[in-house]
């Protein structure tokens, strides 16, 4: 049984059990599994609370102590905490986050693996407007008014979303279709040309499979998106923190892409994938 067995217990992380949460997309679940299994290897009791929802929800649950550990993306987190911040480096990002982060929470070391939001167009659109992987978001300036854009409902209002695309790149799309956060709905919509451009995660394995084109983000609107564990202060032991740091040290974008492909294309169970990677990386 999972945490759902004690639904009303807000501070599930109290005591010796660590609750590892995740957002409701495959990579987040995978990362949570990696964190959790790494912690278990250190003899820490772990329960998972996967698949929760958007950051808006998970951040709340971190604050109230329902979950102890959450795989985060530093850029998105910062954008959520401080929409105006424009950090130039990973370190700046961390500093900016620390300034705004809830006092009960802290970030551990970031990994090299990045997974950003992006503006991605499908093959058809790329061909039509001659867009390549060297094109930038700014190249859409003239054609955006003819494009339907797909993204999660929250993308519509975030700065690292429609608002930023407008203010930073001056893009105004023909319409915005609320789908999911870079998930299968968005993938399908893009593939079927229901939308011509969409917010996909850069580690999305369907990008290569379906020949989507990710546009460059020269203004760094989507910021740095390093995978980085967010934890509740003092509720994770030293060994635990060390174990997660070790994971971050080994994890890079290429590894992440590979793991994502295993889960989403090869249909392997994320937990199995996580365990296998930890083993191959010598972390367990």
């Amino acid at each position: 049984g999972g945490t759902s067995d004690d639904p009303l217990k807000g501070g599930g992380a109290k005591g010796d059990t660590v609750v590892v949460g995740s957002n409701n997309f495959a990579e987040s679940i995978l990362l949570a599994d990696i964190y959790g299994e790494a912690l278990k290897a250190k003899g820490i009791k772990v329960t998972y609370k996967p698949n929760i929802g958007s950051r808006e929800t998970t951040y709340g649950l971190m604050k109230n102590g329902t979950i102890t550990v959450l795989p985060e993306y530093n850029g998105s987190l910062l954008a959520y905490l401080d929409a105006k911040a424009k950090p130039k480096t990973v370190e700046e990002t961390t500093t900016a986050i620390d300034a705004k982060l809830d006092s009960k929470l802290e970030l551990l070391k970031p990994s090299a693996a990045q997974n950003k939001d992006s503006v991605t167009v499908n093959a058809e659109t790329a061909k039509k407007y001659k867009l390549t992987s060297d094109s930038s978001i700014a190249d859409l300036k003239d054609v955006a008014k003819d494009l339907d854009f797909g993204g999660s409902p929250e993308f519509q209002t975030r700065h690292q979303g429609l608002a930023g695309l407008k203010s930073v790149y001056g893009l105004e799309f023909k319409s915005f279709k609320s789908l999911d956060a870079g998930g299968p709905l968005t993938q399908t919509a893009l593939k079927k040309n229901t939308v011509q451009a969409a917010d996909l995660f850069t580690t999305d394995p369907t990008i290569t499979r379906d020949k989507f084109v990710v546009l460059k983000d020269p203004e760094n609107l989507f910021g740095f998106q390093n995978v980085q564990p967010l934890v509740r202060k003092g509720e994770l032991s030293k060994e635990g923190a060390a174990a997660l740091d070790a994971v971050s040290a080994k994890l890079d974008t290429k590894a992440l892409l590979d793991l994502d492909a295993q889960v989403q294309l090869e249909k392997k169970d994320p937990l199995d994938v996580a365990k296998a990677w930890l083993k191959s990386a010598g972390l367990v």
Partner: protein
Amino acid sequence: MSGFLHDFFDIPSDLQHSWLGLIGLHLREALLPVAAGLLLALPIAQLCVRFRWLYPPVLGVTTVLYAIPSLAFFVVLIDYTGQTELTVMIPLAVYSLVVLVPAIVDGVRSVSEETLAAATAMGFGPVRRYFQVQLPIAVPAIIAGLRVATVSSISLVSVGMLIGNQGALGNLLHDAQIYNRPELTWNSVITTALLAILVDALLVLVRVLLTPWMPSGTARRKQAPALEDAAR
């Protein structure tokens, strides 16, 4: 084929349950609200029988509550009850009222004048009359209502997936998407439907066991008024 079957029953680890575990969870999340709804509906219905004028407004209120999408319910509730089963079950219990209240009211009202007069003349007090005469005779109507409420509830639990793995079999739908595994969707839809049909059949059985006094052939016609509202 066996590959498909294997995939079919291979439940992703993030759901933290086996297929049977999900079924158990699903049943609990679907049935507890109906039970709670029944407990709530009984006194409400009795009030409606007692005070006739109360019935139309009660019907109106339950209908409006029923019309509120579960998602909206979740959003309001989540601050109080968190991302838990309870958040899913409260709306389901509220929804069940729209079926159960009219079913009980009609069932209790369907007791014939003559039977009531006979009971009164024998010196039955109102309470005794309710529990020993009206309620037992209303059982078929109540179970007809319970059937609809339960089946709907089983189908509705799935929406709980939207608030983080609280949809039992419904969670398969989300996982099917994020892992690109459509067979999980089939699993969810088919299992839910079978579960509902099974529980429905069980309720029919319970009805048959509880009401040996009901003529089997002519039952249908007499049940019509109860079903009117049960179909709501």
